[in-house]
């Protein structure tokens, strides 16, 4: 793991906010409610929010993996074209799927095996480090 500091925008259930706020290794920079972009999205009982958070790559990857393990009906979109990068847990993508949206807007799909995928962790790490280097 690395100690480099990065910022990420994370779209997750609102109760995830407390998890970030209680972790001294990360700083919550803001949170706002979001609605799914799909037309006529489901009426959802739980509010979803976008949390802007900064911290070490290691700390953020831990949180992202924990959220990924909790959201067993959702895939992940890692959008590198936004600044900071956005990680969203998306209902319309099957669990075990990670979509990497690159900085040029093109998307690559990764289908991951197992629930403790080293691939997912490695992807999060590489992306976070790349973003840290590029500023």
């Amino acid at each position, binding site marked *: 793991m690395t100690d480099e500091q990065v910022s990420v925008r994370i779209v997750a259930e609102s109760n995830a906010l407390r998890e970030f706020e209680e972790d001294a290794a990360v700083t919550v920079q803001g949170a706002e409610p979001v609605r799914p972009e799909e*037309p*006529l999205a489901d009426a959802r009982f*739980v*509010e979803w929010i976008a949390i802007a958070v900064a911290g070490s790559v290691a700390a953020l990857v831990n949180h992202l993996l924990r959220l990924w393990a909790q959201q067993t009906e959702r895939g992940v979109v890692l959008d590198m074209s936004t600044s900071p990068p956005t990680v969203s847990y998306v209902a319309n993508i099957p669990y075990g799927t990670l979509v990497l949206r690159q900085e040029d807007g093109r*998307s690559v799909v990764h*289908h991951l095996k197992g629930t403790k995928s080293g691939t997912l962790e490695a992807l999060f790490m590489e992306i976070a480090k790349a973003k840290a280097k590029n500023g």
Partner: protein
Amino acid sequence: MESRFDLLTGVAYVDADAPESWRDLAVLPFWETVCDPSYDPRLPRPLMHESLHFWQLMWSGYLMSLVEDEWQRLVRFETVGALDQASARVKRHNDRNLSPFCPDDLVEAWCRYWDVHIRGPHRVLEEDGLARPGGPSREGMYSSRDFDTAMLEGPSARLYARPYRWLLDYFAGESATCNALFPFLVAVAFLTDDPTAAFADGATALHRPDLADTLQRQHTETGETINMTWLEIAGPMLQAELLKHVGAEPRLGADLLGGPLASHPLLSPYAVKAAKSNFKNWTSYFFPSEPSPRRYLDALVRFSREAPVIAQQVMPGQPWYRSILGALIPPPAIQFRNFTWFAPLILNIEIDHGSGSVAYTAKGDHTFGNDFADVVARRARFSAAQQEAALGLPLGSLSPTSTPS
């Protein structure tokens, strides 16, 4: 699992275990026993909330027209492989830039309103970790302050509080008036093509000193019980004050099920189910088991005779009306954590006149379970295609059958 209601399929998802005894029941006992303390504490709130969304859909021509648009888009996607743009009204439905709020905000506020009344503000405040406001409160009753606190605060308040706060501001903080008028304003608004504008127009029409005096008098005469106030003002409020603003014939959601939605396996049967749910035909079957004041029962019966179709759907906060809604037009499928419950396609009711007991069965054992998996799978493919389009991916690339990395 996430509690939610899927408008396009009509399926409710409830992130809690249901009692095993419900598994094969044709009518769930829940609608009469919402506050039964023996339930898994995670069960009542989302089950009530998501069921309310289904009844909104059956009531509202506006909401059903959105589903009609999306269903046609889904069918076209399946038949020609093209993913059309969503219709203008679907896009507008949750446009957060609309002022003072968008129709989707109003849907959530409407649902929350009944959620709080049905389960009681005290319970909702406790669940949300909110303190009760100060001030006097009679034993077993709740005040408008209790209601407003539950309605305007809480972890998801940003989703549902705006329209109610707007109305409260419009009526200069006159909580009892807002509380009485809100369900009628919002119900009529959702019979129009522009619920937000209709809601605001209705509020303007009702913002009169004489009406405030009438409401205050009703409130006092009914012993300050909101259930009686609703019944006393429902007829004049709906027919004399609000429905005239709708203009053309109001459109109920269930009335639209004969058009493009006739091919929807989970919704189209409700064209018949809703038509058969006319309240006055069912009073003897669903008479409330809890003792209630005679005056209240008389008012329930009177209003159901005056306005049988709207009686139930406008006021699910009346336990008797809610029992009928739950029995006759429940959501077609409710997926709990431990099993999925399916409503009967046609409900059979047998009454033993000797013992007075009533037995409910699914006629011919036919339930919505036959079509459930197929409709949900079609919906999932359609949703995945929309996501693929949004991400610039080829259609089918999010299918889990693709090669794993």
